[in-house]
């Protein structure tokens, strides 16, 4: 399987099942999770095994239902009722739902679906979501069409629909993670850029192991990746096309060490750090003109910049006060204002996609934390604590943070973890081997 596969995903499409009217009117029923306050009790739901409507669809039907269940349970907001508890089975996608059977097992939400194979070999996945206690569909039925290799994406699309209808917020399942895959001993690590689905599936390598690579970031469209590589023997910033894996070194002053590149929301401007004569400052580079501009001029360390989603401001870290702290400045440079004031050191700030929060790494009393604060520095909350947590990245909907957690000692290894911004639902992201520096893509189209 290759990354070219993702090109085909562009053809994945959803259409409403207008031609498949369901008895009863769609309504915005009482089935609703308000996740702004954090959910304590997950909402019980049932995924009926999707009905296979063609001989070649059986495996996909089973796998798609499974992935939907895993996606929703994985949020910590939902709890899947095991199939063994089901009283009735859905054997026909269009049969009336036996609400009493689902109420009896306390399924608040029911997901039904079917999988068929079109004459051109593509999969047709249909689903409906029911509010069991209101005895009504929640939203309209939807149909997704895609290549068989995209079956997981179709499961993610269904999950995003369910999540969004019940929570009122956009989902994040149909998204990808670019990260650094690590092998080898601690003092001679081999590092390669890799990309995978948000849940660790479909891993693809983007670079070989010949040079150290660090801290990739997706473009706002998810088609390109910025990262730092030691290809020349010195850390320098590169841009890579995810589909073709063609890469180019970005045009910045020769002889300089550059790192920490991130895109502006326009996808055309790159903000990064440049170290010269021992001093690290923040610059921008216009990708079309190749023109760079210096944003900070201080003898201190200025690095780890991150644009606000409206492109007007940059949050970054600086040790100008004597220790690593967070600052916000206008996107064209100008007087920075410090926003972190608690005990310890603060680094790697990342502006949330909603614009309301900044995620960061905090070091205090020998421990590392992932935390969030409002963009003025108020309401700081620490979400995690360990020997070494660092490098948060936001899910496209701003609800979940993924980060690197590294264990101590000679056999210490980094792994990817995710946590809800409520601080609940800490999970290890399943990947083969070790990994670090995750960066979340936008929701795929």
């Amino acid at each position, binding site marked *: 399987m290759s990354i070219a596969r993702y090109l085909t995903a562009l053809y994945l499409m959803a259409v409403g099942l207008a031609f498949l009217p369901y008895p009863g009117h769609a309504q915005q029923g009482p089935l609703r999770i308000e996740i702004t306050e954090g959910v304590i009790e997950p909402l019980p739901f049932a995924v009926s095994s999707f009905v296979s409507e063609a001989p070649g669809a059986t495996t996909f039907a089973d796998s798609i239902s499974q992935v939907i269940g895993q996606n929703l349970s994985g949020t910590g907001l939902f709890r899947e009722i095991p199939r063994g508890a089901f009283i009735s089975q859905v054997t026909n996608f269009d049969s009336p739902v036996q609400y009493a059977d689902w109420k009896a097992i306390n399924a608040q939400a029911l997901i039904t679906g079917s999988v068929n194979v079109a004459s051109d070999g593509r999969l047709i996945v249909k689903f409906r979501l029911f509010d069991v206690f209101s005895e009504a569909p929640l939203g309209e039925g939807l149909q997704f069409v895609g290549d068989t290799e995209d079956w997981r994406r179709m499961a993610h699309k269904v999950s995003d629909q369910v999540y969004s209808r019940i929570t009122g917020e956009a989902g994040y399942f149909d998204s990808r993670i670019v990260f650094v895959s690590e092998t080898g001993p601690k*003092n001679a690590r081999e590092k390669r850029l890799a990309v995978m689905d948000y849940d660790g599936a479909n891993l693809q390598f983007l670079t070989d192991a010949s040079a150290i690579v660090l801290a990739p970031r997706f473009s706002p469209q998810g088609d390109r990746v910025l990262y730092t590589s030691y290809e020349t023997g010195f850390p320098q910033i590169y841009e890579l096309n995810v589909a073709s894996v063609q890469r180019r070194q970005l045009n910045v002053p020769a002889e300089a060490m550059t790192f920490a590149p991130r895109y502006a929301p326009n996808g055309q401007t790159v903000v990064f750090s440049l*170290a010269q004569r*021992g001093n690290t400052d923040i610059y921008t580079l216009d990708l079309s003109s190749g023109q760079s501009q210096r944003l900070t001029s201080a003898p201190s360390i200025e690095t780890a910049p991150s644009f606000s989603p409206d492109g007007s401001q940059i949050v970054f870290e600086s040790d100008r006060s004597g220790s690593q702290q967070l600052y916000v400045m206008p996107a064209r440079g100008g007087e920075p204002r410090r926003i972190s004031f608690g005990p310890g050191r603060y680094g790697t700030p990342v502006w949330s996609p909603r614009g309301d929060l900044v995620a960061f790494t905090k070091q205090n009393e020998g421990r590392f934390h992932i935390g969030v604060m409002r963009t003025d520095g108020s309401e700081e909350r620490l979400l995690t604590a360990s020997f070494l947590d660092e490098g948060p990245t936001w899910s496209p909907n701003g609800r979940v943070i993924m980060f690197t957690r590294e264990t101590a000692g000679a056999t210490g290894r980094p792994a990817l973890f995710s946590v809800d911004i409520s601080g609940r639902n800490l999970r290890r992201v399943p990947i083969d081997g070790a990994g670090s520096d995750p960066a979340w893509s936008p929701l795929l189209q």
Partner: protein
Amino acid sequence: MTLTRYALLLTAVAVLGACSTSADRFGTGTTDAAAGIGTSGLGDPSDPTSLAYFQQTVGDRVLFVVDQSTLTPAGQSTVAQQAAFLTSNPEYTAIIEGHADERGTREYNLALGARRASAVQDFLVTQGVAPNRLQTVTYGKERPLEVCSDEACYSQNRRAVTVLAAGLGS
């Protein structure tokens, strides 16, 4: 879906068919990930013009205090001897590697390593070494020398290493 899109789809599928099923288009690959100090061809340590002499007798590295890039008195003494060696052996050029321990965030540590390398470079220049013989590189926390998670190892990893190469100097 239009006929055009349909045709495009078939093309994409054809491309897929031609691809390997492996996640890895790069093969197993060889690597020279162990950047830093080579250990071959160092010469005779009793020869005061040899790389072995520089590493073992002069001392190729200096260590730093936590989150600091100022040379300690011991560090200054080592770098002064490095400068004397470079002055008497003008055929060498040097790349100074700056490193940090693992108790910091990745990009901050890159900046910190750059500072440490630069501190050594600056001191070498004040001791009379021509700036065009010197380059710096930071590895941040990417290439620890010692792998334990204790101060005994951290103190060895907070270092700047002067790596010599022959031939390119004036």
